[in-house]
């Protein structure tokens, strides 16, 4: 029933879009049916997949680096005073600002785009990793020591929920950086397609590109939630019991 209500509201919004598009006569706001028809002009193999691939590669590299660095910095407490100011500064730099630097350093390549996506997606995981590692229950570490186990064997599962929460934020950032990186010095990709359509007054195609972006975002978030539920089943169950 609740799901039905949500669909109803979505359908209503689409209807408003359609009516508004049909009544307007500027040509700058096409009805949704035109935008959907233009979806056919977007080639999944050349327009969507390369974009999605770069986003996922950048996301994977960024999350891995963030987790490794975060847990390491959090674990080696002596390291933190050395790196904390630098980290605070670097994370405060809005990621799109490094794009011109990356273009200069790496050229207008796929590797450059993956690099800026990774550099931006790394931060939420890194920060979550530092904080969660510092907060690992000392009792867990005592049990590990008394059982002759390596500390990492209890640190990793203990910080996993925080890392995954960070990765969820990183996923959104990766998609944003994917689009932005494709709007600079690009000749392909969804961001390029949207910008190019706007510049050539292919307004319906511009909206079609935005719709594809929305669908892509929805799809990766859904897949992420599935993985999350699988990996953190104990954590979700525990929260459920603690909450109920």
């Amino acid at each position, binding site marked *: 029933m609740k799901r039905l209500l949500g669909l109803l509201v979505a359908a209503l919004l689409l209807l408003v879009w359609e009516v508004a598009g049909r009544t307007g006569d500027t040509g700058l706001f096409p009805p949704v049916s035109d935008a959907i028809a233009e979806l056919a002009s977007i080639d999944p193999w050349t327009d969507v997949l390369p974009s999605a691939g770069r986003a996922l590669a950048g996301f994977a590299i960024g999350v891995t680096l963030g987790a490794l660095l975060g847990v390491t910095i959090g674990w080696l407490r002596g390291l933190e005073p050395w790196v904390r100011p630098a980290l605070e500064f670097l994370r405060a730099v809005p990621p799109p600002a490094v794009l011109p630097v990356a273009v200069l350093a790496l050229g207008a390549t796929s590797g450059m785009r993956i690099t800026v996506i990774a550099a931006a997606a790394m931060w939420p995981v890194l920060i979550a990793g530092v904080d969660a590692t510092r907060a690992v229950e000392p009792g*867990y570490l005592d*049990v590990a020591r*008394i059982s002759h186990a390596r500390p990492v064997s209890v640190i990793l*599962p203990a910080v996993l929920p925080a890392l995954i929460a960070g990765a969820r934020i990183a996923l959104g950032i990766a998609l944003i950086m994917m689009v932005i990186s494709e709007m600079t010095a690009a000749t392909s990709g969804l961001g390029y397609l949207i910008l190019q359509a706007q510049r050539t007054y292919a307004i319906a195609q511009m909206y079609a590109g935005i719709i594809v972006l929305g669908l892509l975002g929805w799809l990766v978030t859904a897949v992420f939630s599935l993985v999350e539920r699988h990996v953190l089943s*104990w954590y979700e*169950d525990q929260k459920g019991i603690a909450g109920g």
Partner: protein
Amino acid sequence: MAETPLVRAAGLGKSFRGRRSTTQAIADIGFEQAPGEFLGVVGPSGCGKTTLLRCLAGLERPDTGTVEFDGRPVTGIPDAVSVVFQDYHRSLFPWLTAGENVRFPIRDRGRAAGREQAREALDRVGLAGFADHHPFQLSGGMQQRVAIARAIVSRPRFLLMDEPFASVDAQTRAVLEQLTVTITAELGLTVLLITHDIDEAILMADRVLVLSARPSRVLREVPIDLDRPRDEVETRALPLFQDYRREIHRVIANPGTAD
């Protein structure tokens, strides 16, 4: 003591340096413990009992003095030592099931053998059939049973318990006290029990070590000459039990004047 002691501590001292000041937790603690002996350690709260336990387990290095286990000085964490920590919330891993938690200390022993030993340990603490439950699905008392099962699964020779029943209700506490005495006797374990509960120490131990306030030293050793099995109700009613309790209370209340 006729037997060679399993554990021997001499002149143990440990301080913690804070930002402003240094706190001396224990000053000069020495004792010996025979194999199979159940030793209770009581003292006023904050007297450094946990610090003592951590030094004995090898988790903390004492500033002064030595700990010997089985005739050898303790430098790291000895293989045959295991610990039941005070708070099961802080010691059981929530991401593992009860069975997996119990198997953690013996995770290198092979899957089939490990599973079998974990099942046996859970049986002993009365949790047969709960191996697949996660800690948060169990009551506090059951979680502390899991912690006990984990501590005995590797068949240690020396079991250290740090106020193991402080976080459970009174009825559960009595049951767990009996269970611990039974299991450790069956396994022939040497046990050192830290507690702030004098009755608990008298009910469970062969000998009670009374510590002073911080910086703590041993005020008195009280051998407990009560028959076993001891009963939660009957034993407490014995005049001898009351004498022990009075003696220990007096020593703690007036450490200077006690004779």
